[in-house]
């Protein structure tokens, strides 16, 4: 059963020596099951903060997050996280990394859906010949695929991805975008994907959420009405270009606002 996410009046304020800083102000968003949501916005707009709240790494100042009527307060295997820095355990092989979640007590007691053959997930991300390699022998893209397989192996309802392809070169990034969509095609999940790249967001998402910064708010939500499955070729279609331009325009406005504010402040 796929689960949706409800973000309900989330506020996040940091108080420090320099006064208080509102990272997130009144964020409300309903994500349907199996939707692919991309969050874009200028740096510091709170996208990663929002992801960390969804993941349960930090508590919001106020507000609630629900996954299928159950409130989120802590990290857990129902929400898989893929980090920008991969966070693949360097002392374990690919196989040991992917099966790590399944060897934890929390997942051994779970439903029979969890921890289907690890081989399945390793193959799903295309790392079949690298099972016994250590992360230090892998490229960035490969490490990220290990991270994705590892998250998948505990059968989460939701995938939270924090600029996962940010550290990769352009070709690898393109390849990973397509791989991700292919993987999702076979095993559907609800996805919350944070990125800087408007093209990436347009290519991957069913809806793109654009955030403004200081305070962090949802400025606009733009649907991407291009059917799945999507291939690299669609990036040159007029439909894609139009939607991308729309999103780009709003993002650039927000970026400009932020720049003006920082040069005046």
């Amino acid at each position: 059963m796929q689960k949706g996410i409800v973000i309900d009046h989330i506020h996040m304020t940091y108080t420090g020596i320099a006064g208080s800083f509102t990272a997130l102000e009144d964020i409300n968003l309903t994500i349907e099951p199996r939707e692919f949501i991309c969050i874009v916005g200028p740096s510091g707009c709170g996208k990663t903060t929002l992801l960390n709240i969804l993941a349960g790494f930090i508590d919001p100042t106020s507000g609630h997050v629900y996954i299928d009527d159950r409130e989120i307060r802590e990290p857990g295997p129902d929400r898989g996280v893929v980090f920008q820095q991969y966070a693949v355990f360097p002392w374990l092989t690919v196989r040991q990394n992917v099966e790590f979640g399944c060897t934890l007590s929390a997942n051994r007691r779970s439903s029979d859906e969890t921890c289907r053959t690890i081989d399945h997930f390793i193959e799903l991300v295309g790392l079949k010949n690298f099972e016994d390699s250590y992360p230090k022998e892998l490229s960035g893209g490969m490490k990220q695929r290990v991270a994705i397989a590892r998250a998948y192996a505990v059968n989460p309802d939701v995938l939270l991805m924090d600029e996962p392809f940010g550290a990769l070169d352009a070709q690898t990034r393109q390849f990973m975008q397509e791989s991700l969509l292919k993987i999702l095609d076979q095993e559907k999940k609800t996805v919350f994907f944070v990125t800087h790249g408007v093209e990436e967001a347009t290519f991957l998402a069913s809806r793109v959420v654009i955030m403004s910064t200081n305070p962090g708010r949802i400025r606009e939500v733009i649907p991407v009405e291009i059917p799945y499955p999507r291939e690299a070729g669609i990036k040159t279609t007029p439909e894609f270009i139009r939607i991308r331009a729309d999103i780009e325009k709003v993002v650039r406005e927000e970026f400009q606002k932020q720049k003006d504010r920082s040069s005046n402040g």
Partner: protein
Amino acid sequence: MGDKKEDKAIEKRFDQKMRKERMKKVGYFFVSFAIVLFVWEMCRALGLVNPKLFPSVLAVGKSFVTMSRDGSLQTHMYASFMRVLVGFSVGIVLAIIFGFLIGWFQVVRLLIDPVINFFRSLPPIALIPLMIIFFGIGETPKIIVLIYASFFPALVVIYQSIVSLDPIYIRAGRTLGATDMEIFRRIILPQLVPHIITACRVSLGVCWATLVAAELIAAQKGIGAMMVEAQNFFQMAPLVLGIVMIGAISLIMDGIVRAVERRVTAWQEKLS
């Protein structure tokens, strides 16, 4: 897949190259010590050092053979070895426990830091007179000095390694559903192992360095004791033999720990 075969061939050539490199290193090792021995003898022959005071390589060698034959060398080595082993083991275990507490709990660190910095700067040798008064002249004061010698350097290495743990692995563990115990045993501990081994190397080094001083607390057995006895009877060969033995054993033990280190940290990305 032809690629894999090629990879294996490249790997084999690389392994062969590594082996050659290692043999070269061993070769250089022996040559450099041979040069030292040569210079030693030359200094005596040319009168740069008093040949009566400075034993020849041969004399030291003879002393080694004599003392091994009558078992006295083994007795001394065993006594020293056991003291270092106990001092080092207890010191390391304590360092791991306290290192963890200091690194993990900020309150503990703030409380203990100043005290640690004080004792870190205090050489173990300075404690010897105090130990004699407290504990007499048996094994206890020597072992305590060695425990002290190995504890502080290891402590710093270990608590630094805990402080510098990357929190992202802990987050990754949490999001996969790990409990606190699981995080400790399966995420934190594996990251600490290389640092613990580094701490071992440092501790062992300091321990051996302190050994002779520790054995000055009236010891009958032990390499340090052997050297003091040689000093009292003006026997140069056993004295120099003692120095060579301490150096050699220290080198061997360090080599062993380094070999363990290489195997245990095979997964790490290193600069070379």
